[in-house]
């Protein structure tokens, strides 16, 4: 989250509390800086700037303005951190419909490169208001994904 937030703000790194005494900073190239006010050491995390964010949303217009219903999780942060966004949407709606309640729109089209109409696009995960997690489908996927042929057959069957 800290790396994505640094990217979203256009800064090279961001401080983060914690991690002291753990082995994690060495595995991810976290470094420390001295707080210029207190002199205390604190870990800083480099900006994590994805080329793309792929997000599934409930409703989007064809230009890429989108509503996320339920918790946005890290989606808005990912959209702000990435260079560009690709949206998949349960349904495509008119821009005028979004303009009636613009405060519900979480993602603006300014950074969206493509919008794909993809009902069921979050399966076998959940999509609030549309479907819940499908445990049986996840088990089928795990079994099928053991081989490339199995995965291809799974994807074909789930389309």
């Amino acid at each position, binding site marked *: 989250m800290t790396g994505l937030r640094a990217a979203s703000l256009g800064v090279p790194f961001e401080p983060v509390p914690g991690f002291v005494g753990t082995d994690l900073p060495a595995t991810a190239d976290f470094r420390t800086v001295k707080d210029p006010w207190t002199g205390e050491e604190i870990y800083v995390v480099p900006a994590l700037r994805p080329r793309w964010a792929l997000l599934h949303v409930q409703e989007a217009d064809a230009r890429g303005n989108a509503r996320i219903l339920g918790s946005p999780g890290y989606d808005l942060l990912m959209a702000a951190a990435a260079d560009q966004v690709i949206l998949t949407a349960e349904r495509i709606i008119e821009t005028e419909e979004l*303009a009636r309640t613009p405060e519900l729109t979480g993602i603006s089209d300014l*950074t969206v490169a493509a919008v794909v109409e993809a009902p069921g696009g979050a399966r076998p995960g959940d999509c609030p208001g549309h479907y819940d997690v499908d445990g049986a489908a996840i088990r089928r996927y795990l079994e099928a994904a053991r081989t490339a042929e199995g995965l291809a057959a799974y994807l074909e069957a789930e389309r």
Partner: protein
Amino acid sequence: MTSPPEPSGVGTGPAAAVADDVRAAADQVVVTLARLVRDGEVTCHGVNSIVPALALMLARQGHAPSARQISIGGGLDGMPPSLPRSSSGSGWLSGSPVVLSNVDVYQLALRGRVDLMLLGCVQVDAHGRVNSTVIGSFDRPEVRLPGGGGAAVLFQVVRRIVVYRTRHEPRALPIAVDFVTATGNLDRVVTPLAVFRATPGGLKLEGFQPGASLDAVRTRTGFAVVPTEDCAPVPPPTVAERQLLERLDPDRLRDLDFL
């Protein structure tokens, strides 16, 4: 000069009480700003910015239909049925598919996604440095100004900054500002008398507005005025521009900043 009318009630402008030269100055600055917008640019205007907001709408309805307009009040490509009295008012959400928070707008700017911003200022000097903070010394000011409102950052992350002045006078265009509030990607300075272009060697006179001459600009400018090689008169508003202005701002709210 007649005293300015009391601003009263939403939607009422200064109307007929305003002198012709004030109306002409307001129209000329708005159309000059609008002409600087390039089609497809992502543009932004701040609070207390009726002149830039109107200029951006004029550009979008004229030569730059694909330009995007972010209002700091949250709207994206808003098309209010009548010009809101405040450029941060909720009217700018009219027609917008999204509400952008101030954090959203700054994030876009910080990531280099805003191409053009139109900003007012109190002083701009020969080097294109802007002062919106204080006249006199910071600790013992003659006048404490409203502040830059993020300009110190925006000047260095937005691709092009155009600043405008509603009055062209020597103390507003000094050799050096009293306090550097912002410096960076300045592109143009627009006043009722002149258009300056920012060059590596400082501000140069690119055009003079209708009714102004090189001598008039020199007399009213605090720093030495150097014309560009292609310095030329700026055309007055076209018939099409006048008609659009009349339709977008029939109450002439734009005049208020020029009184």
